[in-house]
């Protein structure tokens, strides 16, 4: 078991290592030691960052410069669009889309000779001849990293590095100097609200559970990140798992629980592996288990894997899933803080929420409350995705505008296309338009506009996106993910989807549009849990802001964005067609005929609109009309 003094010793010992991973302004040959940080998040791992690490290590050892370079596999840097990402300190040089074949040259030029490897330098860091540090780019400049702290600067699999960056200091402070009430007060005062979607005051939740006079209580970390398009929880678990463990222990102390569970998606193997490893390390150090820091406080954490059910992000469903049942929600009240896991008081906090806790304890409630807006304090992590230049993970202070996030940090819309909408809140949220771009991002503003904060998915859509199809996409998702327990959600989402299918199929009527709205309102009112209560939001918000698109589908039988298959057809432009016959050969329904070297023709009656001809044509002769 480690005591407080042991942790201090670890800090002293490891500090120098972390100091190397800073931008110092030094350059060229004056640098004697470099840190090569390779992103080990899921995105970059998918594009082979592990092989890159191996190649780096091999090159470095073949040059015999092991003592002058460290290679660190870190958590996510955020700019997934450019992955695999490699950052070299102390210059802060940002390499993007690095490939294994780049490594020999990169090592030789940069690590051996001190000259950045030009070929893979991130374009946005070029400033004339000068190469800026990545921190000066638009993507990073406006970010404030609290929850994502350490992601990208430490090796998440080395507990000492976490400890050296003030890790477990907050737990020590809580256990040795603060009462339970003080902890809860601090969290309350900070104004931290749940980052999983609900936006409930975290401190208040803790207080409810703390007040329950029960022997057994539980802390659950909800890592069943379900919003399709959000991956901040996964990134935190992959990049800074100890911050979650520390926070769960603090929560346990505050409410009087000695057992915690993390419920994490089985689809996140890297996150599960890193978190499990972190748990082992924390146990080994005595930071979990009996008598932590000799204070008599006991706390343990077990991992439970989700099994592919979005509804299990809902608190009561998650509880039933841990209990071994179908993830079907039960009514609240009773709230989990009163009657939760196995009937015992339970708090459930989302990963990102917990990742803020240690910093709040260390820096104080006022510090945290000074960031953000009056009712939405602190920062929020967003997963930028869709039709945006900088796809990735960003952490911004509450109160920032959508425009700043999408156009400054996100770099705007690629391919010179026009911005059409931004979707926040995932399947529970709504679509906002151009006119909302200057609205601030906070819980209440987003809700008042008919969307919501949700867990932080932010999907950007351009002129090629059909908003009716987007609504249909979300309803297809919620219909598929509805647990099937309550009537409005089980049958209602199906009926909504059917009406949307009808409309995107060009068979919709005005009555359908009216029914769509009516039924949406009823499902919101009458459903048992938040999934059903918010499922119609994508429908309602698109009808509200993009009614003309619905009308175009219904009255003109047109899909303005050219997405809905039934409302488009493919044609071959005789002028552009070279008669190569590729489309005819690839067509699965034999709908294309013609003679080689003469223009081909699509028979619309047999065409199944699969789009293969459009994809394969090298001369852009196939057009959607």
């Amino acid at each position, binding site marked *: 078991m480690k005591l407080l003094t042991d942790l201090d010793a670890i800090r002293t010992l490891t500090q120098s290592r972390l100091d190397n991973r800073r931008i110092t302004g030094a350059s060229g040959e004056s640098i004697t030691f470099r840190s090569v940080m390779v992103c080990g998040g*899921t*995105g970059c*791992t*998918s*594009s082979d960052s592990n092989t890159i690490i191996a190649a780096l290590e091999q090159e470095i050892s073949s040059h015999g410069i092991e003592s002058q370079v460290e290679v660190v596999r870190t958590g996510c840097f955020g*700019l*997934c*669009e450019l*992955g695999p990402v490699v950052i070299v300190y102390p210059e802060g040089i940002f390499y993007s889309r690095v490939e294994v074949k780049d490594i020999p040259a990169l090592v030789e030029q940069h690590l051996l000779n001190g000259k950045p490897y030009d070929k893979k330098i991130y374009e946005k860091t070029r400033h004339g001849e000068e190469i800026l540090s990545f921190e000066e780019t638009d993507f990073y400049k406006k970010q404030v990293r609290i929850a994502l702290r350490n992601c990208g600067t430490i090796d998440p699999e080395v507990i000492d590095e976490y400890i050296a960056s003030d890790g477990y200091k907050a737990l020590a402070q809580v256990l040795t100097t603060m009462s339970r009430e003080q902890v809860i007060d601090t969290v309350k005062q900070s104004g931290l609200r749940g980052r999983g979607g609900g936006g409930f005051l975290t401190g208040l939740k803790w207080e409810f559970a703390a007040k329950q006079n029960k022997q057994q209580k539980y802390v659950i970390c909800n890592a069943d*990140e*379900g*919003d*399709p*398009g*959000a*991956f901040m929880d*996964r990134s935190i678990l992959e990049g800074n798992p100890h911050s979650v463990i520390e926070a769960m222990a603090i929560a346990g102390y505050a409410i009087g629980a000695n057992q915690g569970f993390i419920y994490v998606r*089985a*689809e*996140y193997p890297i996150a599960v592996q890193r978190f499990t490893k972190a748990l082992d390390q924390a146990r080994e150090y005595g930071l979990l288990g009996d008598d932590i820091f000799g204070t008599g406080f006991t706390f343990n954490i077990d991992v*439970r*894997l*989700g*099994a*592919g*059910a*979005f509804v299990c992000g809902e608190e009561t469903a998650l509880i039933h*899933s*841990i*209990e*071994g*049942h*179908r*993830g079907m929600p039960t009514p609240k009240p009773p709230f989990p803080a009163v009657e939760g896991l*196995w009937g015992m008081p339970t708090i459930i906090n989302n990963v990102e929420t917990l990742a803020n806790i240690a910093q709040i304890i260390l820096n104080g409630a006022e510090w945290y409350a000074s960031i953000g807006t009056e009712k939405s304090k602190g920062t929020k992590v967003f*997963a930028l*995705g*869709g*039709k945006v230049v900088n*796809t*990735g993970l960003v952490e911004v202070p509450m109160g920032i505008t959508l425009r700043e996030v999408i156009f400054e940090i996100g770099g705007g819309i690629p391919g010179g296309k026009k911005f059409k909408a931004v*979707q926040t809140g*995932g399947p529970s949220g709504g679509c906002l338009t151009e006119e909302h771009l200057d609205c601030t991002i906070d819980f209440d503003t987003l809700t008042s506009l008919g969307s919501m904060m949700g867990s932080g*998915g932010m*999907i*950007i*859509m351009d002129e090629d*996106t059909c908003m009716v199809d*987007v609504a249909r*996409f*979300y309803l297809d*998702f919620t219909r598929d993910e509805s*647990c099937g327990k309550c009537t409005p959600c089980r049958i209602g989402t199906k009926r909504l989807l059917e009406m949307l299918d009808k409309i995107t199929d060009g068979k919709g009527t005005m009555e359908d549009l009216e029914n769509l709205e009516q039924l949406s309102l009823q499902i919101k009112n009458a459903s048992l849990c938040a999934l059903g209560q918010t499922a119609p939001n994508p429908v309602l918000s698109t009808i509200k802001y993009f009614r003309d698109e619905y009308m175009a589908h219904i009255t003109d039988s047109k899909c303005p964005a050219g997405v809905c298959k039934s409302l488009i057809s493919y044609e071959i432009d005789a002028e552009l067609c070279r008669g190569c016959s590729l489309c005819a050969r690839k067509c*699965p329904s034999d709908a294309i005929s013609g003679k080689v070297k003469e223009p081909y023709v699509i028979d619309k009656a047999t065409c199944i609109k*699969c*789009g*293969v001809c459009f*994809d*394969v044509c090298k001369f852009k002769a196939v057009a959607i009309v």
Partner: protein
Amino acid sequence: MEHQQTCSSVDIAEADEKLEKVKHAIEQFKLMKGALIPVLHEVQDIYGFLPEPVLQVVSEELNLPLSEIYGVASFYHFFSLTPKGEHVIHVCMGTACYIKGAQAVLDRLSTELKVPVQGTTEDNKFTLEATRCLGACGLAPVMTIGEKVHGRLVPNAVPKIINEYK
């Protein structure tokens, strides 16, 4: 004939080994509250799906009605009650991927492999599945084949990728 017999004895030995693993996993979780889902994860890890006879063993050992186990197994989409093809293709249908054309990739896979979504090819080589967000939105649209992630896909890339696995 002889060959077949050897095969079957190997099969039996393998089957026994797998069942032993399951029993070991059950032992490990048995006394834990809410053991069912962790046990099902283990069974799926071992067999690639949840075979009915194995679930009967789970039913016996955990003292839970088989109908309840079936109810849980069929609720969670991560669990499969039918065997899958040699290569399981998961096409991410998260929003980011969808907006960037995942549907076209999925359609193309379906056309190329001649299987419907959630189906397995006749030669048992491929199972095609649409899946929830894989969290690799930066690489959208994304699919995984086995452990391998293929990102920034366009429909035209599909035939070549599939060929690598044939």
